[in-house]
């Protein structure tokens, strides 16, 4: 048994196991550039980006009950939008905010159409729109550079005109920028799902009909969830061009839409942290497998099958269950 304070009914306890674990993780992430090399920072950025992507997806899927297969479309709008803005004026903040808002706008327009359906029809509709965005990225050469994409995107400095200008040239600097943005975005998402709005989403997931009869316009709230997911996808995408210096059509392909789905299911859809943990595992699994074998697809596939067959709750709920089992008497305080 731990030596922490005896569990009480108070929910205002300052130090809880959950909070200290989170604190530890954040500290580890902040210290990462000191212990890990450039590649570690690069991978950490990728994981953070996928986390944001999956987190937004899960607000739509895990919380509102809508499985989208077209999130890559908004991811791509964020990426291409940010890239275009960075090529226009080299200001990181302008690019990232602009790309995110563009994706949100796209989600609003397409969302009005998509939220008319639920279940498999919703999935198919989002797939269709996502692939339309992919086709545009591929075919609208004058704007998107076609198959070859946009190249030579600068990692512009973080600029607030008249106030401050921080160069982002080094990977470490950009890592801290992405980390800060991600932590803020994750905190906002956490607040959101534990707010009345979040509970409304969950009500819609559980029973649409019942929700309508509490006086809520289900379609409006589905649209809100869709736009939020679109904004997170857009933000994730908008962090990409400055990292890679390139944006190409595969970011919009349906196989990219599968990434947040896999990450979320890996981590667990019921837990808030599921998509984040899932993104970490998904990335690390792939990154480690590709070092050892050319046949990484089959291993990824086997992991997917095993997870689906045996661990549908995802890693996070599995861990929580173990935790509870280890500490009897500390739940339901």
């Amino acid at each position, binding site marked *: 048994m731990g030596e922490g304070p005896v569990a009480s009914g108070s*929910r205002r306890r300052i130090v809880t196991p959950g909070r200290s674990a989170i604190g530890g993780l954040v500290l580890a992430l902040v210290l990462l550039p000191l212990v890990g090399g450039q590649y570690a920072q690069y991978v950490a950025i990728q994981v953070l980006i996928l986390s944001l992507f999956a987190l937004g997806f899960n607000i739509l899927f895990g919380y509102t009950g809508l499985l989208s297969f077209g999130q890559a479309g908004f991811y791509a709008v964020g990426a291409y939008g940010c890239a275009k803005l960075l090529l226009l004026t080299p200001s990181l903040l302008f690019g990232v905010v602009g790309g995110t808002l563009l994706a949100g706008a796209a989600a609003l327009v397409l969302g009005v159409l998509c939220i008319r359906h639920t279940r498999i029809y919703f999935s198919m509709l989002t797939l269709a729109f996502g692939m339309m965005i992919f086709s545009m990225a591929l075919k609208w050469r004058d704007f998107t550079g076609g198959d070859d994409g946009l190249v030579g995107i600068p990692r512009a400095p973080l600029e607030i005109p008249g106030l401050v200008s921080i160069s982002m040239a080094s990977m470490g600097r950009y890592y801290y920028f992405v980390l800060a943005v991600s932590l803020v975005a994750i905190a906002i998402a956490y*607040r*959101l799902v*534990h*707010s*009345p*709005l*979040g*509970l*409304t989403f*969950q*009500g819609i*997931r*559980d*029973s649409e*009909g*019942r*929700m*309508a*009869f*509490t*006086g*809520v*316009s*289900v379609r409006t*709230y589905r649209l*809100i969830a869709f736009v939020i997911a679109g904004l997170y996808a857009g933000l994730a995408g908008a962090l990409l061009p400055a990292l890679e210096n390139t944006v190409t059509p595969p970011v919009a392909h349906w196989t990219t839409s599968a990434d947040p789905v896999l990450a979320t299911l890996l981590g667990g859809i019921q837990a808030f942290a599921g998509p984040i943990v899932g993104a970490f595992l998904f990335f690390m699994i792939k990154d480690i497998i590709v070092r050892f074998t050319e046949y990484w697809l089959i291993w990824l596939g086997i992991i997917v099958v095993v997870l689906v067959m045996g661990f549908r709750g995802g890693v996070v709920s599995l861990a929580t269950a173990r935790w509870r089992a280890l500490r009897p008497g500390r739940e*339901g305080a």
Partner: protein
Amino acid sequence: MTEYLLETKGLRKTFGRLAAVAGVSLGISEGTLAAIIGPNGAGKTTLINLLTGLLTPDTGTVRFKGEDITRVPSHGRVRRGLSRSFQIMNIFPNLAVRQNLLLPALSRRGRNLHAVARLEDETGANADAEELLREIGLWDHRDARAGALSHGDQRLLELGIAVGTRPELCFLDEPCAGMNPIERQTVLGLMRKLSSQRRTTFVIVEHDMDVVFSLAERIVVMNHGEVLADGTPAEIRENRVVRETYLGAEV
């Protein structure tokens, strides 16, 4: 002339060739406890679906508090003071019991859109939910997952959600189906209490004639999508047509 709380004129809904509701004109006054009865397939549930906005009528109008709400969607009707429960159980199975009741309370207070407030800081809505929890007798189960409740408790919970928006008019589709006598008494007690304290008008669809005749102040009998008879329990008991076509068989 009497001012009805809810009034329908010539309401009609057909599915293919079948007229589920074939021209119903009804008026429901404030504060009554009314029941709709009739054999299976008489069109009772379709009528309620038309009144609560789940279906749109082919012809006819629905007026609520003098306003034409024929084309108003369900959630809009709820905001105007109308609510319902479902024949097939309809709760939020993955949420805690308390959260089930928090949702209608938040909605009534227009708090759904609040994206940064903590749930526990919604004091007004929480107080409403806790009051309801006690009233429906699920206080002890407040932190349980709703889907894990017993059948009777789930029906109670659904009733709680339905009245959680504090409706002026509430439709209950077979509220006592599958309940044990104690649970049934909770339901009936709650209805009587809300009816007298908040002047909530209840319209129930029910097969259990004991419930109907012990509770209802007014009974509407439907058959083949039409209103067969409409009156006080005493009048219905005396109605020859009703006795022949319906009550004769069951009572």
